[in-house]
């Protein structure tokens, strides 16, 4: 059993909420460059187990997320922000299905 950290990248509300329940690493980036930079920082941390990122932010750096998602650890997970889901999480899944089965299937 390895104890790992959880990080959250998102808007102020999301970060506040998760900070409340013990997610110790957080970032509130504004520009795509900052999002990328904080994602990479968490990603490089060897004790990181799970990175949560809100969908609107993930949308802006879609390519990086797809690329980093190929690594098994840390797990990068898109979560809806306070306005509900936008369906961005499907891009990661769809890419996986395309690779595994060879055709695109709507889920």
């Amino acid at each position, binding site marked *: 059993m390895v104890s790992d950290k959880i990080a959250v990248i998102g808007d102020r509300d999301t970060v506040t909420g998760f900070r*409340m329940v013990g997610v110790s690493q957080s970032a509130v980036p504004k520009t795509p460059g900052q999002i990328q930079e904080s994602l990479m920082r968490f990603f490089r941390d060897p004790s990181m187990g799970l990175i949560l990122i809100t969908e609107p932010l993930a949308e802006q750096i879609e390519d990086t997320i797809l690329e980093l*998602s190929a690594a098994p*650890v840390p797990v990068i997970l898109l979560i809806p922000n306070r306005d509900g889901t936008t369906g961005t999480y499907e891009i*990661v*899944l769809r890419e996986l299905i395309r690779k595994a089965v060879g055709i695109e299937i709507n889920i």
Partner: protein
Amino acid sequence: MSDILPGTKTTRMELLSLRKRKKLAERGHDLLKEKRDSLIMEFFNAIAEIKETREHVETALKDAFSSLTQAKMIMGPARVVEFAYASRVEANLNISTRLIMGVRVPVLSVEQHFPKIPYSLPDSSTKLDTMSEKFAEALKAIVRLAEIESTVKRLALEIERTKRRVSALETIVIPRLERTAQYVKLALEEREREDFYRIKMVKEQISDEL
């Protein structure tokens, strides 16, 4: 000729071992095909599960955000943020692995430590308590989702690898073995005919001399 395995000797022993290798390759091919099929089945089960858990996460987060808004209304946004950053609740992620059909998949669980008094009670409202409860619940659901998602990811990777192996066996290894065996067989037959003819010639020469 280019399909023939390099360094093959045209002997009967070689032919036998080639046939044995071909049989082995065919068996491996069948097994891998079965593995691929059941991996794909497992994969789609996991995808269905993702959808379900996704919905669960969404409702949990929605609840959490609405209680966050309530807490903000009562305590003021700045105070809520202040409390959140000072919160002494700890969340640790435990990662272990289990095996699905020879694929190592992670099992995640979150360990949350709630101290008796996580923050100053007189200065906070009960709304803050509900909010922290709701977020803790959402976090649990999210961790579960992360587990399934990374399971799917690894399954997809394994499916890809298995597919590549299956098609490598099917289109390269087995045909090549087949053709090499054929080549050896033909060469052996040719040599047999040569021998036969040589013996005939010798026999004729001997009978002429007599």
